[in-house]
């Protein structure tokens, strides 16, 4: 496990440096960053003063070295736009995204597993098709459109739930469901396929032949093994899930880091984008560590192998 942690951390450092480099290059190679966060009418003199104050007139390599160093030490400096510590801007808004992301992930997993088991075990073909249809649809509908439809139906027409994040717990429901729809339906399909295959696999048949009860086989053997691909999926998608919240946060006015990232990119607020990238990379790293643990708990044979990271998981 220790090796797994060390490898994850090494990878984290590589990720942070590589991603920071790309972002640094894009922001700097695309013109004057002050155009993003200063008013359009600001004079060349005022812009020059700002560039000098932010060190933007240093040679690029020096800025780069400073930038990478800052990323690795967790000191991102001040936001170019509002001159508040960039890391705080991200951390202030992290809880909202974490709340949305984690509840959506739990909903997706629970909902997906239930749907998946239903679809694998239902005897009635019509029901099975219905469940599979829901899973297919959840995977195919653009999230921003689904969100708008949810608002139209549940907030405006029915008046059951608030349309945007107003701080009440009920405001979480619609964005959470919207965010969960896609991963949930994928998990459902993974579970359904996995259970279907496992039910007919050798080791399950062996268990059956040893006289273990159906129920016991399902709970002890089939289900945990069917969960392995789900865990691999969640680990792989952790980064994408955070990305997915950008869209949801815009639709539902949810005050998370996704909207902050979008706004900061528009304004070329490099310190905030930088902090955002590093914080999310750490988040993804932690999720994957947790998944390493879960996988080795379910399947001891995977121990050590899981540590090889994404490629080994596949």
């Amino acid at each position, binding site marked *: 496990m220790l090796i797994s942690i060390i490898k994850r951390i090494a990878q984290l450092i590589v990720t942070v440096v590589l991603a920071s480099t790309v972002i640094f290059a894009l922001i700097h190679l*695309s*013109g*004057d*960053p002050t*155009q*993003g*966060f*200063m*008013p*359009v*009418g*600001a*004079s*060349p*003199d*005022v812009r020059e*003063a*700002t560039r000098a*104050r932010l060190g933007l007139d240093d040679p690029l390599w020096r800025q780069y070295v400073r930038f990478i160093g800052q990323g690795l030490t967790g000191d991102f400096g001040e936001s170019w*736009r*509002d*001159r*508040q510590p960039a890391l705080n*801007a991200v951390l*202030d*808004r992290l809880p*909202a995204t974490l709340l949305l992301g984690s509840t959506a992930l739990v909903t997706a997993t629970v909902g997906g597993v239930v749907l998946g088991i239903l679809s694998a075990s239902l005897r009635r073909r019509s029901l099975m098709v219905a469940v599979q249809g829901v899973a297919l649809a959840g995977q195919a509908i653009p999230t921003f459109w689904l969100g*708008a439809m949810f*608002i*139209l139906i549940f*907030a*405006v027409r029915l*008046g059951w739930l*608030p*349309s*945007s*994040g*107003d*701080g009440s717990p009920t405001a979480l429901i619609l964005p959470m469901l919207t965010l969960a729809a896609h991963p949930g339906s994928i998990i459902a399909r993974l579970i359904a396929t996995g259970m279907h295959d496992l039910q007919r696999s050798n080791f399950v048949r062996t268990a059956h032949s040893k006289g273990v009860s159906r129920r016991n086989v399902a709970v002890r053997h089939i289900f945990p093994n069917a969960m392995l691909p789900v865990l691999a999926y969640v680990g792989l998608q952790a980064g994408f899930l955070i990305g997915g919240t950008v869209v949801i946060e*815009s*639709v*539902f*006015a949810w*005050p*998370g880091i996704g*909207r*902050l990232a979008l*706004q900061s990119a*528009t*304004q*070329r607020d490099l310190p905030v984008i930088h902090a955002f990238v590093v914080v999310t990379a750490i988040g993804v790293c932690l999720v994957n560590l947790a998944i390493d643990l879960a996988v080795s708990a379910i399947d001891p044979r995977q121990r050590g192998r899981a540590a090889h990271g994404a490629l080994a998981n596949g």
Partner: protein
Amino acid sequence: MPDELEQAMGRRAFVGALALTVAGQRLASAQATPARPEVQPELVIDLDGPPDNLDPALTYSVRDWSILHSVYDALLHFGEDGTLVPLIAEEFSTEDSKVFHVKLREGLVFHDGSPVTSAAITRSVDHLKASESQIADLFGGITEVREIDELTAEIVTGEPSAWLPSQIAVWLVVFPESATPDSLATSPVGTGPYRFEAMDPGNSITLVRNEDYTWGSPKGAALAERVTFRFVPEAATRVADLTTDAAQLIVSLPFDQTTAVEDAGKTVLTEPILGMAFIRIATDTAPFDDRRVRQALNYSVDVQAIADALVGPNTRRLASVFPDPRGLGFDETLEPFPYDPDKARQLLAEADLADGFDSTIQLVAGSRTDIVEAAVAQLAEAGIRLTIETAELAAFNQAWPDDSAPPLRYATWRPMYDPHTFLSLVIDSAGFLSRHDNPKADDLIRAAAIEPDQAARAELYHELGRLLKDEPAAIYLWNLTSSYGISPDLTSWHPRGDEYVVPVATSGGDA
């Protein structure tokens, strides 16, 4: 109150500024005591995004100023008819537009309890001129602030700057001595109708009523004990908030959603603002250096049809760059270009472009693409074949003066109580954003900038308006309007010409 006004106006030159924009009876209406409705306990306002900054020297958007002018007061204030009225200044006057005499009202206190003195003016001017300020240019002309006594001061400029009072009304708000760069950015303390209470980053800002705001401010009285500004970027979501009573006031209501708001029993307010929409034509490149081509562009677009379909009825068309009677330089005798594709083709033929030509038009990604698409389709019928190019906002702004950028760009500009900023940046050939080259226009703009008398300035701008009609600097579209959805019981709030959403009760300008 009328007495104070007379005192304030009694001094020479500045009267010009006020008298010229509108006739005398409208001045009186600005001063009509606002209705005093009962104060609501709670008010939620959906803005279309978070403010970029709260520090006065960094503010540059309507969202910023909505918060700014709820918490702070400036020396001057735009009345609902566009006239400048003294706010925390009891008197504000000038003889030569170089020395501005300010006398502050007695007994005003900041939210932290400290008194408002003339030192606050120096403090604010210094802050706006500081190197960290993004608007240092606008106040750079101020050479000194002389504090005469506790309540009187003189703001002195190097050259006549008759446009300065308009800038003062936007930016020169006063803050107490205890203010720090950090507090200005995160917990502003002013003298305004609301105290700042809390900020939930990216989500909301909460203000509470300032009980001491009882001195009959022309800005109006607070509407609610507690106001929450929420930031909701998606228009459909703002509408949902209003119709489900999660918000009582929403901004930037799209024209196509007005019926949904009305069907839900809410009120739609659509008001012209002091701003304009136009397609800027770069005159530094062929064929746009030929004024006949620029006229042809104006004749080829059926602006009225586009406005009726996509902006809303009663949209006022633009004849040149002076959009609104409340702003300086508006000329009601100047007629907008009619839609006349035959005339356009004839002009193009005269310019040896009988077969039309190809060019590119740029706009900000995510802005009104439908307007541009509609205009482009009409221009194509006259043989002007345009490719649409979207640019992200920062890139778009950077490209204003860039002579390798597309020669046409769809843009909007606001606020324009005083056209000086726009003209000196965009039309003057030396402007930072300019791709316009017309020596006659330069002369008029520079003359108006240092002309101390407002009536004389207005005359110069009228001449400029006629010039820019004949030798167009843009395809002139329309005077911008702003649409709000409000809860029907919110009768005492009225839209402002500058679009700031300050939750105060006002007379509505038609009293």
